[in-house]
């Protein structure tokens, strides 16, 4: 290991600080601010841009996140072992990634535009939104540009040998700052802004991600709650009585 001080700071200290803020921030907010924990819908105030922008952004984001999980968390050796060559992997990654990236960038652009141009929404914009929207846009654009510049039009850059190694090192507690320090500037900036985004995450509306209502698919339709904690006589497969706090 012969990483410079700057490398250690940028690629070890900063990511760990951001991850710590991410974790502690969520615990703090979940315990202190259930009332503020919401997607903060603004569809009531503006729906024409949202109608296209929001689904584009969210569905694009799902694909992009899935791509990141595969690209960052799965070592190249595993995909090789599964019989997927470097060329095949890259072709799929570039095509699917580009489609997802275009959707996400277009959607986010529309969401930003409505936030800036619709006065009702601009006035209702929270301080946390003023951090979130630029940071999210920067991260998305940098990532998109890095892919376009290096892998669509450029000669191709195999981030799985560098950025991914660094990323996995953080979680295996064997940080390898030297793995990423030689990566192209766009990839580096994308990684750094992503770190900041994770640090800001718990203090913004992004927390609604953790409230994705998957449980709704299996819960009974009708919800009864009882004020007192005495065992409720109400029962039956179609109804439920929660024992949780009512407020």
């Amino acid at each position, binding site marked *: 290991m012969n990483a410079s001080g700057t490398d250690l700071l940028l690629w070890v200290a900063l990511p760990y600080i951001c991850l710590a803020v991410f974790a502690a921030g969520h615990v703090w*907010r979940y315990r*202190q*601010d*259930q*009332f*503020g*924990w*919401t*997607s*903060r*819908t*603004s*569809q*009531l*105030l503006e*729906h024409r841009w*949202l*109608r*296209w922008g*929001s*689904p584009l*952004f*969210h*569905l694009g984001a799902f694909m992009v996140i899935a791509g990141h999980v595969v690209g960052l968390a799965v070592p190249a050796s595993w995909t090789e072992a599964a019989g997927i060559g470097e060329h095949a992997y890259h072709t799929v990654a570039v095509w699917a990634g580009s489609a997802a990236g275009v959707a996400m960038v277009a959607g986010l652009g529309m969401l930003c535009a409505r936030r800036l141009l619709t*006065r*009702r929404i601009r*006035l*209702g914009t*929270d301080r*946390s*939104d003023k951090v979130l929207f630029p940071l999210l846009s920067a991260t998305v654009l940098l990532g998109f540009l890095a892919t376009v510049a290096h892998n669509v039009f450029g000669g191709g850059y195999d981030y799985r040998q560098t950025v991914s190694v660094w990323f996995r090192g953080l979680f295996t507690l064997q940080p390898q700052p030297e793995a990423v320090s030689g990566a192209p500037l766009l990839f580096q900036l994308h990684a750094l802004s992503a770190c900041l985004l994770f640090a800001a995450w718990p*203090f913004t*509306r992004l927390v*609604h991600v953790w*409230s994705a*209502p998957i*449980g*709704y*698919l299996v*819960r009974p*339709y*009708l*919800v*009864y*709650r*009882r*004020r*007192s*904690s005495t065992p*409720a*006589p*109400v*029962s*039956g497969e179609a*109804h439920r*009585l*929660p024992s949780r*706090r*009512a*407020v």
Partner: protein
Amino acid sequence: MRVLAQIAMVMNLDKCIGCHTCSVTCKQTWTNRTGVEYAWFNNVETKPGIGYPRRYEDQERWKGGWMLDRKGRLVLRSGGRGKRLLSLFSNPDLPSLEDYYEPVTYDYDNLVGAPAGPDMPVARPRSVLTGRPASITWGANWEDGLGGAPEHAGGDPNLRGEWAEKVRFAFEQTFMFHLPRLCEHCLNPACVSACPSGAMYKRAEDGIVLVDQDRCRGWRMCVTACPYKKVYINHATGKAEKCTFCFPRIEAGQPTVCSETCVGRLRYLGLLLYDADKVGEAAAAPDERDLLDAQRGLFLDPDDPEVIAAARESGIPEDWLEAARRSPVYALVSTYKVALPLHPEYRTLPMVWYVPPLSPVLDAVTSAGGDQDDPDHVFAAVTRLRIPLEYLAELFTAGDTDVVAGVLMKLTALRSYMRERILGGTGDETALEAVGLTARQAEDLHRLLAVAKYRDRYVVPAAHKEDAAALTALENRCPVESHGGPAGRKVMLGIPALRRSAPEALAGGRP
């Protein structure tokens, strides 16, 4: 049999003068906060009319309530669970603010702050949302007293079929009445069933439907699912809010604010006992016109020893059973059957019922040259004058005019019988018999409809002391409390800086 108690309401529409006192006092109590300026938990509409929000009764468009699928199963009209989750990103069936109205305040500062000059200073309207001067083009009751009706009221979704054309073309000559509306606190609430977070719930003790502000994540499916459009989004907090049936007052044994302040004394509050095991079956009645009877069939006779035993087993306290026996709501809904639910065809089994107005028929009798004090004339009108009858049937009985006619005849017979009695006569009981009332019942019903005092109109048993500790632990704050509450250390991450101190600033017209 699983007995639950529900606090329910009946409104006698003949007495409603459309003064909006209920709406205003409700607004002052619950929705005078930033983010819900446009929301009226209680509003009064003129009928026929478009309503608030516009055309909310058009479920082809807004997809509210339940319907039966091809196999006869009860499903939400807005789609199944999967479809609902897919529309989280953008809900295609959500009314926009324009469907309600743009809330405004006035430049009151200008009245006292304008420099001296030859002209009187004026307070111009400003949008509460943008702070810019706004022209007022719509409101929660734009068509008050049929104002603008020739242009707008043709858009009333209840005006369907041939007879509706006649209403549309002869507006001034037809009829009108006022319809106060609030959350129906349904037995089969579509909003609760549509809430992806499980934040909405029906209280097992008194049936009040509430939104848990800490668990609402702003997915806004409840607004679409409610066919009465009585769940609102607070655009400052991003959470759903709705009529609470003034539960802090109800728990203290007091009537709701809208009932307490009703000038016409047309509201009744009381308990209904119902069999919760049969709710799903009743809501899924194959024929829409059977829904009224199916729902009435859920209500249990509080004097029946079997019901009392089952209620005790369910943990309903003795004083609540006593209140159920004195319930004016049970009398109007089940004993005398003069109250009807609003739009039973939505299949939510609503619990705010209405005594339909006789006045449209009486007006028609008078304008046809008849005598509205002669029951024969009114009976004839009820059976022959289709317009008001068809319209009332669209509202209250899924289109079944026989049921509405039956109620109106009952009211007519009662009216003429009591009129004779009060004028010193003995009263002709044949008309009463024709509508299935005895002289004794007629007097009771007359007392309930015409002279009932405060404690007869509002029979609200207080929540139980033994529950008090649990109550304060669970619901110790206003369910729709916004950021201005007493908790000084409250985290306000979700609230935009502009809105934090907004109410005063906005009231002055300078947001």
